[in-house]
């Protein structure tokens, strides 16, 4: 009896092994689909941590899955590269006065359960964010005072102050159906896990923690522009070795990960199809603690601008993937239209140690007999420079920066704390010099208000919101206020140009390079990805990209 059961178990085990080696799930070979369609595309990670749970609540930024990007839509879609708003669920918008914005909604849009989309849904969504502050992750109710449906196709929004500065946020707030969400007791703890209802081009087809599959929504309002039938997202291990290997084998049609030596590891494996584009993100800058000498001296900071070898940092610490940053705080060339006209080289400072040396001496910081740079008190200037030790590319940049400063006669202690200690010390102002990130968004108000407004700062020892250098300048505050209440683009441009002058003339921080947005894509099945030659959107503008993809080999637009 016993023996026969053992034999049976062995037989079953053998059968299992056989079945398993023969079958690898649902994978099937497929090139471009029939009749000018793409059967499916393989995407990278879909978020939700290492053990993702079904979560399609578009406002739970920390735990929702990437599917929400394709299931839900916004009033407008922002091209975050060129900073252009595209009509989406709204076809047009008018500022009837600086504090009133009227949206005309698109006709004929349906939720994927067949119910019609209307102004009630928009009003419901915005009111829900007002009631549940935990869902208002863009902080839109800092600006709004009321949202009303004028008629089923028109929404009127009122602002507490002139609202132009908040406009980009409408490109980030997903609209949810009133008929589903009004029945939810607490939308903050609502995972929306079963068949999420949205207006977007895709619906959730299948999910398990390893793979998320989205199917095309045949009734989508611009269904003719969506040529992809299925998107398959694959759980990653955070850009590790295995993912890089799968990428190099062409197992992803697109991904967004850091790859060392991308030319050799990816492009050269299939030069005809494997492409990448790393557009610039935020500015990574030297933050000086402006409450301490000598950093509180404008002449000192200004003299330091040419002291850093940005090109060497870009080439050696950043593998040449990024570009040196403009002192203006803006991202060039994408945002060059906002710069003052007379600015040489778009504000990107070259490396000129001799000039830095001369300027420092002229500013009252000469070298002493030992070649050490001394402060106004006659003592050698010594300070610490911190980057998180776990961020190895920043640590490499730190070496170059410390070498640059040491050659000017400064005594610099390179420190590499944990990211938590670094973040905490940065927030409470317990540092001399460190690297920080700011700007990079299409929202010019945010780009300057967050790092420079005095109300984002705090006394040393208290946590600052985002003004970590503790820049406190009434004129800057006034310009930021002008920018916030500016009612048209011309007025915004004047304020931004003046703020870039604050950056170049008073140097609250010294930008060195731009963080990169990682983006790899393959043209074996689909073409029409945004690229350096055709930068119609940023890599994260999913809705815009998915409506631009075409099967390889067809030119139909």
């Amino acid at each position, binding site marked *: 009896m016993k023996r026969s059961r053992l034999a049976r178990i062995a037989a079953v085990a053998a059968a*299992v092994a056989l079945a398993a080696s023969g079958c*690898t799930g*649902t994978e099937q070979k497929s090139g471009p689909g029939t009749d000018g369609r793409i059967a499916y595309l393989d995407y990278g990670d879909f978020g939700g941590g*290492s053990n993702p*749970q079904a979560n399609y*609540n578009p406002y739970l930024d920390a735990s929702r899955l990437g599917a929400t990007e394709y299931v839900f839509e916004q009033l407008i879609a922002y091209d975050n590269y060129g900073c252009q708003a595209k009509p989406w669920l709204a076809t047009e918008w008018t500022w009837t006065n600086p504090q009133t914005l009227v949206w005309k909604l698109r006709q004929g849009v349906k939720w994927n359960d067949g119910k019609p989309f209307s102004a009630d849904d928009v009003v419901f969504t915005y009111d829900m964010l007002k009631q549940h502050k935990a869902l208002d992750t863009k902080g839109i109710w*800092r600006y709004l005072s009321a949202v009303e449906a004028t008629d089923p196709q028109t929404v009127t929004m009122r602002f507490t102050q002139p609202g132009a500065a908040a406009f980009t946020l409408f490109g980030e707030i997903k609209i949810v159906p009133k008929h589903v969400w009004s029945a939810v007791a607490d939308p903050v703890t609502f995972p929306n896990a079963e068949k999420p209802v949205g207006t977007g081009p895709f619906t959730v087809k299948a999910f398990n923690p390893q793979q998320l599959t989205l199917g095309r929504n045949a009734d989508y309002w611009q269904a003719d522009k969506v040529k992809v039938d299925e998107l398959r997202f694959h759980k990653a291990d955070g850009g590790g070795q295995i993912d890089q290997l799968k990428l190099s084998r062409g197992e992803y049609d697109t991904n967004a990960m850091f790859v060392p030596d991308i030319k050799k590891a990816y492009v050269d494996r299939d030069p005809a199809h494997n492409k990448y584009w790393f557009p610039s993100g935020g500015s990574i800058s030297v933050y000086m603690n402006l409450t301490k000498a000598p950093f509180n001296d404008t002449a000192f900071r200004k003299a330091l601008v040419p002291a850093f070898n940005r090109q060497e940092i870009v080439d050696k610490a950043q593998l040449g993937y990024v570009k040196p940053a403009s002192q203006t705080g803006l991202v060039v060339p994408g945002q060059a239209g906002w710069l003052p006209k007379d600015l040489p080289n778009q504000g990107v400072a070259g490396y000129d140690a001799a000039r830095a040396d001369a300027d420092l001496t002229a500013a009252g910081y000469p070298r002493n007999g030992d070649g050490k740079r001394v402060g106004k008190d006659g003592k050698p200037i010594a300070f610490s420079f911190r980057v998180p030790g776990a961020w190895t590319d920043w640590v490499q940049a730190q070496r170059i920066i410390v070498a640059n400063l040491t050659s000017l006669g400064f005594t610099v202690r390179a420190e590499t704390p944990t990211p938590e200690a670094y973040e*905490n010390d940065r927030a409470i102002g317990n540092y001399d010099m460190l690297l920080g*990130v700011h700007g990079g968004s299409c929202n010019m108000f945010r780009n300057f208000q967050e790092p420079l407004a005095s109300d984002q700062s705090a006394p040393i020892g208290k946590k600052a919101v985002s003004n970590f250098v503790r820049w406190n300048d009434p004129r800057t505050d006034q310009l930021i206020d002008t920018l916030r209440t500016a009612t048209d683009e011309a007025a915004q441009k004047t304020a931004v140009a003046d703020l870039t002058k604050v950056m170049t003339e008073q140097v609250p921080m010294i930008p060195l390079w731009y963080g990169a947005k990682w983006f790899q894509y393959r043209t074996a099945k689909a073409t029409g990805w945004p690229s350096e030659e055709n930068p119609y959107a940023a890599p994260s503008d999913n809705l815009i990209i998915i409506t631009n993809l075409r099967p390889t080999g067809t030119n139909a637009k």
Partner: protein
Amino acid sequence: MAYFARRFAFFLGTLWAAVTLNFLIPRLQPGDPAEAIVSRLAGQSESVDPAQLQAIRIMLGAPDGNLFDQYLQYLGAVVQGDFGVSYTYFPYSVTHMIGEALPWTVILVGVTQIISFIVGTLLGTWAAYRRNSRVDSVITLGSTFLGTLPFFWLALLLIYVFAITLRWFPERGGYGGGSSPGWSWIFISDAFQHSVLPAVALLITGPIGWIIGMRNNMVQSLGEDHARLAVARGLPRRRIALTYGARIAILPNVTGFAIALGSVLGGTVLVETVFNYPGMGRLLLESVSSRDYPLMQAIFLFTTVGVLVANFLADLLYGFLDPRVRKAETA
């Protein structure tokens, strides 16, 4: 009986200390969970949006009352088995997340621990039985050599050879993207296939400790007077080895085995990370790195309680297996 009562009191005391420490330690760590979440979302090269930080702070909520009130609330919740909502997997509860991860770990690590213990004890016994022979040198030297190999290197080597070069087994995960968890043959065979490489990695290194421990204990116990007396009396060698040597030598390993089984609940961080296995170890690592205090606390608590219970049971078992212990404690 006094022995068992004393063991039980000791168990309760340790349990209380563990639960209390588990409450205190996360609160002494630096770092704000909301900040950790937002900086993870923004990534290294993007600036953090203060509005998002504010919203997430509201979402997570702040603990009410002073530390003592929080402690009482915590004790009450722990007794009811309520560990709150996970921060990283909001709005899913900690209990739900552990329920998802626990079966993977218990099956993979539990089964390999048991096999390791059996194989290790048998090999150790064999080595001691044939001590100083060629078999002994092969087993002892072989396991010492394998034991010096870094585990992650071994695991990566397995992945490289069997998953990437030969493509016999999948390189990571607990199951493939095509199947969905359930009691279907496709899923079970898929999960089995995914478990082979991590299991092999665990089985290569797992028995080593048991082998060395068992061999050394047994060699020692075979050298004791009663074993020599048995030899002098002319008892069969095999009987001496098994009843006089192995039976005594296995005692310390029983405690070790019980603790190993208890710690299964915490998973094996290294194995699960290298193979991206959806078990408790990876969940623990993730909760620590993202400051998910509720999840972290619950996993630590599970592990501690697992080890304590196992230790307690081993103590009880010991009392039965080895009368000397019982007598020594009561005397």
